């Protein structure tokens, strides 16, 4: 279980996260959503150790990991898919998957991992993780590097960002599969209704605070207020 206690984070005099308290249970699929600038990505980065909170503590299965660096958190079972997949010169998809699994992976095993994110594997394993790949391909590879680790807590920061709608529709299937098969906790930052629909619980962030947390049926009312407003206007007319 992951527990955040009283997390605060400010930059340039602006409160990004304001006294966040949150508990995430094992085997649940969570989606964090909220308007731009609500602190979603910052919260995810604080869990991975990419950003340090100004105040508060983070516990993973009862262990205080607040001061632990990124690599130690990774070894404890936290995985993180970056919103902008990182590119490398000279490092192939196969190299990256070997590093992810931390073992001498065979090409066949690497292909199996890639197949899970919908990539026709043999075409990709020996390609460099660089700008020659499309945004959608890089995104899938990024997701594959996290899935390959079988993390206890997998964080995906806006998987839909920077890819076209067609690619995203296919990605939704990948997340459905993760929701079905993952034995750990999954935390996805997303604005997309298709992803929100998969969630066991939705966390709605607004202006650095948790506005609502619960099953989608309960949170959807808060998220889709504008639609209701429109209907009311229509009725009045």
């Amino acid at each position: 279980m992951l527990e955040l206690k009283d997390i605060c984070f400010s930059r340039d005099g602006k409160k990004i996260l304001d006294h966040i308290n949150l508990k995430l249970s094992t085997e649940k699929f969570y989606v964090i959503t909220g308007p731009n600038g609500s602190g979603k990505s910052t919260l995810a980065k604080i869990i991975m150790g990419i950003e340090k909170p100004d105040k508060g503590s983070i516990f993973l299965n009862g262990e205080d990991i607040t001061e632990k660096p990124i690599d130690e958190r990774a070894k404890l079972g936290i995985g993180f898919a970056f919103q902008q997949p990182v590119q490398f010169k000279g490092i192939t998809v196969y190299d990256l998957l070997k590093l992810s699994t931390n073992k001498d992976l065979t090409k066949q095993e690497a292909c199996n991992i890639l197949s899970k994110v919908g990539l026709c594997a043999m075409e990709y394993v020996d390609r460099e993780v660089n700008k020659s790949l499309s945004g959608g391909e890089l995104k899938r590879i990024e997701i594959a590097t996290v899935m390959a680790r079988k993390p206890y807590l997998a964080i995906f920061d806006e998987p839909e960002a920077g890819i076209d709608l067609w690619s995203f529709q296919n990605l939704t299937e990948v997340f459905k599969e993760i929701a079905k098969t993952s034995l750990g906790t999954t935390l996805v930052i997303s604005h997309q209704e298709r992803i929100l629909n998969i969630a066991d619980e939705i966390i709605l962030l607004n202006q650095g605070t948790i506005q609502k947390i619960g099953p989608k049926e309960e949170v959807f009312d808060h998220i889709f207020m504008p639609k209701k407003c429109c209907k009311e206007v229509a009725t009045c007319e």
Partner: protein
Amino acid sequence: MNKEEKELLEEVVGEDPTKADSYNIRKNGQGIKRKINPNINIVSKENNSGIDIYVKEDTLFGTINIPVIITESGLTDIVYNDFRIGKNANVIIVAGCGISNNGHKDARHDGIHRFYLEENAKVKYIERHCGLGVGDGKKVLNPVTEIYMKKGSYMVMDTTQIKGVDDTIRTTKADLEEDSTLVITEKILTSNDQQAKTEFEVNLKGENASTHVTSRSVATDNSYQEFISNITGNTKCYAHVECDAIIKGNGKVKAVPEIYAKNIDANLIHEAAIGKIAGEQLMKLMSLGLSEKQAEDVIINGFLK
């Protein structure tokens, strides 16, 4: 040859150099072993100042190893090797120099290699340079490569200098005629107080001639590197020069690109990027469980692969 010398040779060639169809091994300024075949002839120049290599036309899949090793501190070895590659021939040439300097005096090798490619000849030229030894005498390498390419010829040149060379000035000059292509990839790693300067001058003389020059360099500690490229397009031609460098510690890299289009149809591109290892690259690898040092090594090894 003793064990150390054999290891040095293998470091340069990548395997036992005597496995090739033809070879010429030079040690401390003297040719010590040679093999030729009906298609590939190697002839010594006067005063043992180098060799002429003749590849007959239509020779296919030939391999030629011409490594040099220096184990004598204080020695300066200057060698002129000329490669004459016949029409339609297709060969792989592996050259380079390994210096093991355990003494106090400088050891230096200047290899001047001239390539003459006849029409439609194809050459893959691999050059590796390295320095070993615990002495405080410098290991100095100053390779000069001149390439003359006739119509339709094709050459790939991969050069690597990844450890132990204190001072180097690398000079590459090429003249390309019609429909010829030259692809150069250079990788250099400098550390401590080492210095490396590399200069390319490519003259695209014939129509549809093209070149692609890629330089990947890593300068660590207090080392210094300088990359100069000078590409001239005289006619309808294409050139792409890419200089990428990573700097670490007090490492310094200077890139001086020059492209000169003398014809409306000359298409010349230069890209240069110098910087430290990107923070997000480190973070990504650390998020896979690597320490910061391991992540740096993976990034640099990949970059120079």
